[in-house]
Every structure is written in structure tokens, then in C-alpha cells.
């Protein structure tokens, strides 16, 4: 055996991991090799010193715990190995549920969860007690503290088609309450429709069931009618007193059940585009519709502009434009009515006939009305004005 092999086996020799024959070979080499014997002696001395290290005893206080754990393990092994097949399923579910609850409990006791809960609580308290007015609170405040408007301020609009409120005779007390509870009289149909819708919702709030819904629908319809006709007066609060008189169960709109509110939203048609609030806006919309070629919208816009009571000079120009639009649309009867109502005072009635748009050829009858006819020869036409919509077509002094 050489020294290298002896050194490789020296550890095994000292730790008794060599068989007897191999150990005898190593000992024989050590007996004849001083270097290897010295290395073996050094290794032996180090081991002797290391063996003098006293091993600390394991703490005794943990021995009972470990013994209990071992006993539990033996019982658990016996149970799970032999009796697991007969354990009721309900018991197994209980154990599983207990583990689930334990995990939820551990999750709930975490610091982050507590911080989130506190933050949500603070936000909730802030929303509850800070002076924040939600839309629902706004309606409630209006109902609880109505703004009193003197009856003298509720002047009817100058439109001749304003109908008296039908609910005035059926529920006079509510009639007295509802108009005074609204905000100051709106200046146009759009604001009136808003107020009307609020009154309708109050009807729902006051009514518990179909009556309230019907009142809200009626209020909505009345609001739309008013918006179309440009009314702003007392007709807008027709339905609310009726609904309030039918079922006075709720005190404010916050008490509307969710289902009824949802039904109301589903039953109501979508709100149309807001109508122009002034005669100038109506005329602008009519002119824009005319530029688009939408004849019906043009006519409607001019009609609305006339209904909004423009100044006399503007009224004449608008009526003239409406007249032309009606003639272009072939609605001769309505054109004649417009002419009779707004344009008959022209100084030169023949000038009106001369302003019929040349794009749609017309002939003038003896009564001043216009009817579609064959194109007139160019030589018989009057002088062409530069601006068809200008009121310079007629003599302004006549108005």
C-alpha cells in the first residue's frame, strides 16, 4: 500500500469504517511509514481533543411536549390508519370547516385588514356626517323646506294655448302646496320639465304603488308637453298633487323602494333633446336644420321661434322663413295660415309672392296663397333679393 492510499483510508481507519482485512493493511503500512504514522497520530490527537467536548443535554422542559406530540402522533396514526374509513362524513366536514374558519380568522386578524377596515369606516362616517348634499338629499330638502313664491309672481306665459291645470279642482289643497314647493318659475320649457319631473318623482315618493307611478308618468308627460309648447307656468305641476293625493305613504324620495324606482326609470321614455329656450336659439336651430336639408326640423324650429314671442321685426322675418319652408314642404294650408297670421300686414303683398324660393317653383293664386306649379319664365320673376331670410323683403314700417 502506498502513502496516498493510506492517507485516503486513514479517516476510515480512525472511524472504524474499514473491514478487518483493509484495516490490517493500513496498520501494516503505518508501522513502516513514519510520515503516515505521524499524520495518523495528529488525527488521533485532534479526535481526542474533540471528544473532550461535553455534549450539552437537550432542555428537559421540552421533553413532555415532545412526548405528548409523539403520543398524539401514535393515536392519530392508529386512527387514520384503521378507523378512517368509518369516520362520518359530517365529522370530516366539520373538521374541514373549522380549518376554513381558522384561516378566515387568521386573515381577519392581520394588520393590513384592520387598516383597510378602519379606513372604510372613516370614509363611511365622513360621508354620513360631513355637509355633503347628494341629489336625493336635495330633493328631500326641497320637499321639507319649500321656497314660498308669491302667487303674483306666477304669471302665466303669453302663449295662448296654456291650458288650465285639471287637478286644480280635484285636489285643491295639494294644488296649493305643490306649485309653491317648486323652485322659482323656470324661464323655459326645459327647466319646467326638470321641475315637472321632480314633481313626478315626488308623486312616486308620496304614492305607494301604481298610483305614484301613474302620477310620475303623468308628470313626465306634462313636462314634455310643456317643454314642447314652451310653457313655463302653472300647468307643469298638474300630476304631482294627484299622485300625492292618491297614496301619501312616503315622506321623502329617499324612501322610494328600489323596485319602484327601477320601474319608473323603465316606464319613462328617454328624455328628448332639450328644446331651444329662446326664440333666437330656435331660429338658429331652424336655420341649421335648413342648411342640412331637414325641412321638418326647419319648420318646427321656426314654429317654436314664433311661439317664443320674438320681437315684431324678428317675428316677421321668422314668419317669412316659416312660410317659405312650408311652401317648400308642400304644406300650402299651413303656409296660408302663417301668411294670414303674420304676413298679411305687409305693405306690398305681392312682395311676399316674390320671396317664394326659386328652387321650388310656385305660382301665386288670387287669394295670395301659393301652390306648386310649372316653372315661371325667368323674365316674369321679380328682382332677386340677395338674402332670402332677410326681413328687408318686406316693408318694416308696416309692423
Amino acid at each position, binding site marked *: 500500500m502506498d502513502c496516498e492510499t493510506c492517507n485516503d483510508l486513514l479517516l476510515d481507519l480512525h472511524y472504524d469504517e474499514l473491514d478487518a482485512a483493509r484495516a490490517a493493511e493500513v496498520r501494516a503500512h503505518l508501522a513502516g511509514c513514519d510520515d503516515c504514522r505521524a499524520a495518523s497520530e495528529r488525527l488521533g490527537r485532534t479526535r*481526542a*481533543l474533540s471528544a473532550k*467536548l*461535553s455534549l450539552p443535554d437537550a432542555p428537559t422542559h421540552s*421533553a413532555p411536549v415532545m412526548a405528548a406530540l409523539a403520543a398524539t402522533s401514535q393515536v392519530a396514526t392508529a386512527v387514520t390508519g384503521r378507523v378512517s374509513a368509518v369516520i362520518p362524513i359530517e365529522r370530516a366536514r366539520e373538521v374541514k370547516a373549522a380549518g376554513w374558519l381558522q384561516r378566515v380568522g387568521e386573515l381577519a386578524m392581520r394588520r393590513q385588514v384592520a387598516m383597510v377596515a378602519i379606513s372604510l369606516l372613516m370614509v363611511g362616517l365622513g360621508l354620513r356626517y360631513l355637509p355633503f348634499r347628494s341629489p336625493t338629499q336635495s330633493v328631500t330638502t326641497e320637499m321639507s323646506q319649500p321656497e314660498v313664491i308669491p302667487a303674483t309672481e306666477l304669471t302665466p306665459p303669453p302663449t295662448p294655448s296654456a291650458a288650465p291645470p285639471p287637478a286644480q279642482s280635484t285636489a285643491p289643497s295639494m294644488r296649493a302646496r305643490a306649485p309653491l314647493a317648486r323652485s322659482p318659475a323656470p324661464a323655459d320649457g326645459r327647466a319646467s320639465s326638470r321641475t315637472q319631473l321632480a314633481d313626478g318623482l315626488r308623486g312616486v315618493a308620496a304614492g305607494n304603488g301604481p298610483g305614484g307611478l301613474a302620477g310620475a308618468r303623468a308628470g313626465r308627460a306634462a313636462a314634455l308637453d310643456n317643454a314642447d309648447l314652451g310653457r313655463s307656468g302653472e300647468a307643469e305641476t298638474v300630476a304631482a298633487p294627484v299622485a300625492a293625493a292618491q297614496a301619501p305613504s312616503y315622506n321623502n324620495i329617499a324612501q322610494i323602494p328600489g323596485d319602484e324606482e327601477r320601474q319608473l326609470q323603465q316606464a319613462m321614455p328617454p328624455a328628448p333633446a332639450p328644446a331651444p329656450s329662446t326664440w333666437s336659439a330656435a331660429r338658429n336651430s331652424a336655420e341649421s336644420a335648413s342648411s342640412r336639408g331637414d325641412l321638418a326640423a326647419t319648420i318646427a324650429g321656426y314654429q317654436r321661434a314664433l311661439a317664443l314671442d320674438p320681437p315684431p321685426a324678428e317675428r316677421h322675418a321668422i314668419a317669412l322663413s316659416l312660410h317659405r319652408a312650408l311652401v317648400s314642404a308642400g304644406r300650402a294650408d299651413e303656409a296660408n295660415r302663417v301668411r294670414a297670421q303674420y304676413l298679411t300686414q305687409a305693405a306690398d303683398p305681392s312682395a311676399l309672392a316674390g320671396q317664394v324660393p326659386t328652387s321650388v317653383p310656385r305660382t301665386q293664386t288670387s287669394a295670395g296663397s301659393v301652390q306648386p306649379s310649372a316653372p315661371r319664365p325667368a323674365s316674369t320673376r321679380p328682382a332677386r333679393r340677395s338674402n332670402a331670410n332677410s326681413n328687408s323683403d318686406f316693408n318694416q314700417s308696416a309692423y
Partner: protein
Amino acid sequence: MRRHRTPIFHFILRSVKNPATADEILQDAWLRMIQGAREFQRASRFTTWAYTVARNLCIDHARKAVHRRHPSLDQPREEEGATLGDSIAANDAGADRNAIGHQLQRSLVLAIESLPNDQREVFVMREYSNLSFKEIADVVGAPENTVKSRMRYALERLQSSLVEYEDYARTLG
């Protein structure tokens, strides 16, 4: 398990260098052995499996201890070389029971704990737990020759660290 309790505790103690922590890890290892008893493969020895569990826990503890700042009770103090635990507990009864002096005990502990981890665990398991090199190779997951090399390096380091006790060791031999 009772037979392996003290050697495993010593193995853990030489790794974590704190008796209280070593006790906790020992209980944790014992609990894991109980929980994993059903997965224990009869083909391997229980000793090997027990030391594997304890070693894994020691490694986990060492990884967590990297982020700790507080000093260990067994950590040597700079001014006098004694450990903080020695100055606090002043319980030298264990050392007095030994025939060798207290100084050799302390030097041995310091020399063993100053070994690299791979050498120290091999040395402790071979010298104090009496595991064979093959079993140690199974525990640490290294070839047997590698284990022997680590053991050889560990003994050489200890020999150089304990050179002042050379004469005393001759008297022992």
C-alpha cells in the same frame, strides 16, 4: 427519537449557536417528523431522515437570521472573547463536570463554530452523532468522497486551532 435527542440538539446548537433557539428548532423538527411520519420511507434510516429534517430547519433559520440585527447570546464579545451568554448566565456547571478545563471547552466550541458550514456539519455528525460517512452523504446530499474531504479539512482546521492544547492532547493519548 429519545436516543437521538441529545446528538440532534447538539448538532442544531453548533449550527444556530443559541441553546434556546436550538431547543425551538429541535421541537419544530420533532413536530415535523411526527407530521411527516407517514411519508417516511422505510428504506432509509430514521437517523438519516431526522438529521435531514433538523439540517433543513437550521438552514431556514440561518437564512432568516441574515436579516436580524440583535446579537446572539453565544456570539463572542470583542473585549474579552467570552460569549454574552457566559456573562449573563454564569452557569458553568456543565463545564465543571468535565475533566478538561473550561478554557478547552470554550476553545473547542469556538473552533467548531468557526468552521465552514459544510465542514462543521460533517464533523459534528461524524464525531458526535456517530453517523457514517455514507449516512452523512445522504443527509447533506453530497458524494461520500466529498464528505470525507470536508471531514479531513475540518480536522486540519481544528488541529491548527487547538495547537496550544497539543501537549495536553498527548497526555490524553
